C-alpha cells in the first residue's frame, strides 16, 4: 500500500506542477529533470510492488513505462521520449559495457563448447526453421490479403531475423538484480552478447536483402556492402578505441574516475550517433577490452554495476513507454502463433546442443528460457515493412512484428528469472 501511495503522490505532484504552474521560458531539458526524478522513484516503487509477486524488477520498470507512457496516463509523451532519447542511449552504453565486461576470456574458455553450439543453433536453426514455416503459415492466415508472394518472402526474412534478436540489456538487468553467478548464467550471457554482436552486424545486410523482395526496383549494390563493412569495422573500432583509452586512464591517470566514466558514456553515445555506428556493439567491445586487458578492469566494471540501477530504470521505463500496445489487437492469433514457434525453436536449439554435449537437465530443458526477451530493433524494421508494403497488409505485418516484441519483452525477464532460480544461481 505504501508503494502505491508513494507512486500516486509523485505523479500527483507532477500533475500539479505541470498543470497549475506556469513554466515560462524553462527549457524542455529542465522540465524533464522533474519527470526523470519522479520516474526513477515511481518505477522503483512499482517494481518493488511487483517483486512481491515474484516478477523481476525489469518487468516492473516496463509496466511503469507502459502505465505513464503514451498508451495510458500520458505523463511520458512521445515528445518526452524523443527529447530524452540521449539518456536512453547513455543508459544502454553503460549496460552494454557491463555486459561486455562479463565476457572474461578465461571464463569463456571453460564453456566455449556449449556457447558456440547454442549460438550456432540459435542463429541457423531458428532463422531457417522460422523462415520456411512462415511463408506457408502467413499464406494460410493472411493469404486473402496478399496477392504478391514476394512480400511473403520479404516479411519472412525480416521476421526470422527479428526472432534472433535478444536484448543483452534484459539479460544483464536480471543478472544484476539477482546477483546471479554460475555456469548457466555465464552460458546465457555469453551467447546473448555474442549473438547481439552477430545479429546487429548482420541486420543491415538482412534488411537490404529483404528490401529486394519488398520494395519494387530495389537492387542489392556494392554500396550496401561498403556501408555494412563501415558499420561493422567502425563500431568495433570505436569500442576497442574507447577500451584502450579507459585502460590507459586506469594505468596512468586514475584521478576523478567517476567523472571519467561518466564522460566515456557520453562519448560513446555521441560518437555512435555522429558516425551512425551501433552503440550496442561499441559499448560491448569497450567492456570486453577493459575486462580482459586491464588488471583493474574488473574493479571498474563492478563499480559501474553498483551504480547501474538508475540506468536500468531509465532504459526499461522508456522501453515500456515506447511499446505499441495498440498493435497487439491486430492479428493477435498470428502473433501468438509466431511467439510459440520462436519458443519451440529456441528450445530445440538449446536441447540439441545440450544433448550432443551431454549437458545437464538445466541446459538441455530450461536454458532456452534465458533467450526469450527481444530487443527493440524490431520497431525500426516494422517501419520498413509498412513503408515498403502499402495498404492494410503492410500495417498488419508491422503490427505482428511489433506485437511479438512487446510480448517477448514482458515474458523475457520473467522466464529468465525463473531459469536462474531453477538453476540455483540467484543470490538475491
Amino acid at each position, binding site marked *: 500500500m505504501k*508503494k502505491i501511495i*508513494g507512486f500516486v503522490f509523485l505523479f500527483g505532484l507532477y500533475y500539479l506542477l505541470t498543470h497549475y*504552474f506556469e513554466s515560462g521560458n524553462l527549457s524542455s531539458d529542465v522540465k524533464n529533470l522533474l519527470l526523470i526524478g519522479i520516474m526513477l*522513484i515511481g518505477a522503483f516503487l512499482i517494481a518493488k510492488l511487483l517483486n512481491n509477486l515474484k516478477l523481476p524488477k525489469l518487468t516492473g520498470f516496463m509496466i511503469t513505462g507502459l502505465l505513464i507512457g503514451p498508451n495510458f496516463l500520458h505523463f511520458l509523451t512521445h515528445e518526452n521520449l524523443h527529447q530524452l532519447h540521449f539518456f536512453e542511449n547513455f543508459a544502454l552504453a553503460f549496460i552494454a559495457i557491463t555486459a561486455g565486461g562479463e565476457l572474461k576470456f578465461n571464463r569463456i574458455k571453460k564453456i566455449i563448447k556449449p556457447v558456440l553450439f547454442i549460438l550456432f543453433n540459435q542463429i541457423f536453426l531458428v532463422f531457417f526453421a522460422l523462415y520456411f514455416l512462415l511463408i506457408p503459415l502467413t499464406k494460410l492466415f493472411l493469404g486473402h490479403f496478399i496477392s504478391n508472394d514476394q512480400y511473403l518472402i520479404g516479411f519472412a526474412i525480416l521476421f526470422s531475423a527479428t526472432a534472433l534478436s535478444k536484448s543483452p540489456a534484459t539479460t544483464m538487468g536480471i543478472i544484476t538484480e539477482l546477483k546471479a553467478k554460475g555456469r548457466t548464467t555465464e552460458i546465457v550471457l555469453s551467447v546473448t552478447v555474442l549473438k547481439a554482436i552477430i545479429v546487429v552486424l548482420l541486420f543491415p545486410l538482412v534488411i537490404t536483402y529483404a528490401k529486394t523482395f519488398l520494395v519494387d526496383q530495389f537492387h542489392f549494390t556494392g554500396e550496401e556492402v561498403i556501408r555494412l563493412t563501415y558499420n561493422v569495422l567502425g563500431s568495433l573500432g570505436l569500442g576497442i578505441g574507447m577500451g584502450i583509452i579507459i585502460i590507459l586512464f586506469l594505468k596512468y*591517470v586514475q584521478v576523478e574516475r*567517476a567523472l571519467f566514466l561518466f564522460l566515456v558514456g*557520453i562519448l560513446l553515445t*555521441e560518437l555512435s550517433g555522429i558516425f551512425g555506428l551501433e552503440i550496442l556493439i561499441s559499448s560491448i567491445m569497450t567492456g570486453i577490452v577493459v575486462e580482459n586487458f586491464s588488471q583493474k578492469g574488473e574493479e571498474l566494471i563492478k563499480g559501474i554495476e553498483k551504480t547501474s*540501477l538508475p540506468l536500468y530504470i531509465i532504459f526499461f521505463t522508456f522501453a515500456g513507454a515506447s511499446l505499441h500496445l495498440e498493435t497487439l489487437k491486430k492479428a493477435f492469433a498470428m502473433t501468438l502463433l509466431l511467439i510459440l514457434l520462436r519458443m519451440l525453436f529456441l528450445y530445440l536449439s538449446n536441447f540439441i546442443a545440450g544433448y550432443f554435449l551431454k549437458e545437464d537437465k538445466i541446459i538441455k530443458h530450461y536454458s532456452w528460457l534465458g533467450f526469450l526477451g527481444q530487443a527493440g530493433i524490431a520497431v525500426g524494421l516494422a517501419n520498413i515493412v509498412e513503408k515498403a508494403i502499402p495498404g492494410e497488409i503492410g500495417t498488419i505485418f508491422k503490427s505482428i512484428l511489433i506485437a511479438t516484441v512487446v510480448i517477448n519483452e514482458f515474458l523475457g525477464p520473467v522466464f529468465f528469472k525463473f531459469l536462474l532460480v531453477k538453476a540455483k544461481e540467484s543470490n538475491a
Partner: protein
Amino acid sequence: MTSVLGLVFLVVLAIIGKYFIAHVNIKKVGFGFLVYSGFYYLILGIISKPNILNILDLSVLKKAEFFFNFILGWTGFLIGLQLNIKGIRRFPKRYFATSLIHFVITFFIITILLLLFNKLTWIHISFLYIFLLSIVGSMGSVLGVGLLVKQGNIRSTTAHFLQFTTAFDNVLGIIFLGLVFFIYQLTHLNLEHALLVNGFAYFLVVLLALFYKYLDKEFKIVEEESLLVIGLILIVVGMARYLHNSILFLSFLLGVLIINFKVDTKKILMTVQEWEKPLNFILLFAIGLYLNFNVLGLIFLFLLFLGSMGVAKFTAGYFGQYLQANSKNKKKENRHVLYGMSSLSLAMVLDAYFTNHSQPLLNILTIIVLSYFITNALILFVMNKKDTEI
C-alpha cells in the same frame, strides 16, 4: 566536433591536467588552493569560449543547463545533510554567536557600502544584485581553511573554530539566498501571490522529506538509497525551476530535513560526498564558459566589491573578536584566513542566473569568480610565505 563532444574532450583534458598538477609539490609552489579548487577547469572553460579558442559555443551551455541545475541541487543537498542538529549541538554556543555576528556585520557593511557606491558612482546595479553580492562576500572559504589545516599551519582548537565558522557561513549564505529569491518574487508578483508560491515550494519540500521518511525502508541497500536521493534531488530541482525558486535553498532544506529525521543517512552522505568534487569541477568548467570579461565597468565594480568586502571583513573581525580563545598575540594573522571567499558563492550566483538569465548576473558571476580566486590564492600565498602558525 559537436558541442557535447567538445565539452567531453575538454573535461578529459582537465582530468589529465589535474593528474600532472597533482604531482607538483604544493608547498613549494604556494598555490595549493589553485590545485584543490579546480581552477584549471575554470581556465579550460574560459579558453574554450567562442571569443578565445572557439571550441565551444553557448548552445552547449543551453543544452547542458539541466545538468548544471542538477549539480546545484546536489551541492545544496550536501550542505543541508551536514546540518545535523544533534551533531552541531556539540559546538560551543559562542561559536554560533561569533560566526553569526561576523556574517551579519559583514553583510550589512558590504550592503551599505555598495548602496552608497551605487548612488555616488556611475555603476547602477539593482538592490537585489547588491544583496546577492553582500551575501557571497560575507561567506568565508571552507577550502582555504581546509588547506591551511592540511598544511598544519593552524592549531587544532583554532582550526576547529575556523572550520565551523566557514561551514556556518555557507548555511547562513544559503538561507539568505532563499530570502533573495523571495524578494525577487515580490518584485514580480504581489505579496499574497509571492507568499503563496514560496509557501507552496517549502511545503512541497517538507512533503518530499516526509516522503523520504515514509518510504525509507523500501530502499534498503546503498544503491537503492542513492536512487531515492538522486530522484528527490531531481524533483526538487525541477520543482524549484517551476516555482522560480532557489535550487540551492530548496535542496538544502530537503537535506536538513532528511538528516534530522531519525533515519540512517551515513551511507548516503558518503555517496553524495563522493560525487561532490567531480560535479563541482564540471560546474567550474561551465562557469568558465559563462564568464564575461568584455565589460569595462566590471573592473570598477570588481574593485568596489573587493574593497567593500575587505573593509567589512576587517570591521567584522574587529567587532566579533575572532579566535579570542586561542590568540593573544596573533590576532592579525588569524583574521586573514576568513578574507577568502567561499566556493559556494559561485554556485549561488549561478543559481540566480538560471532563474533570471540576465546579463548583469553574468557580470556579477565574473566579479565573484575573480574575487574568489584572488582572495583565496593571495591569502594562502601570504600565509605560506610567512610560514605563520596560527
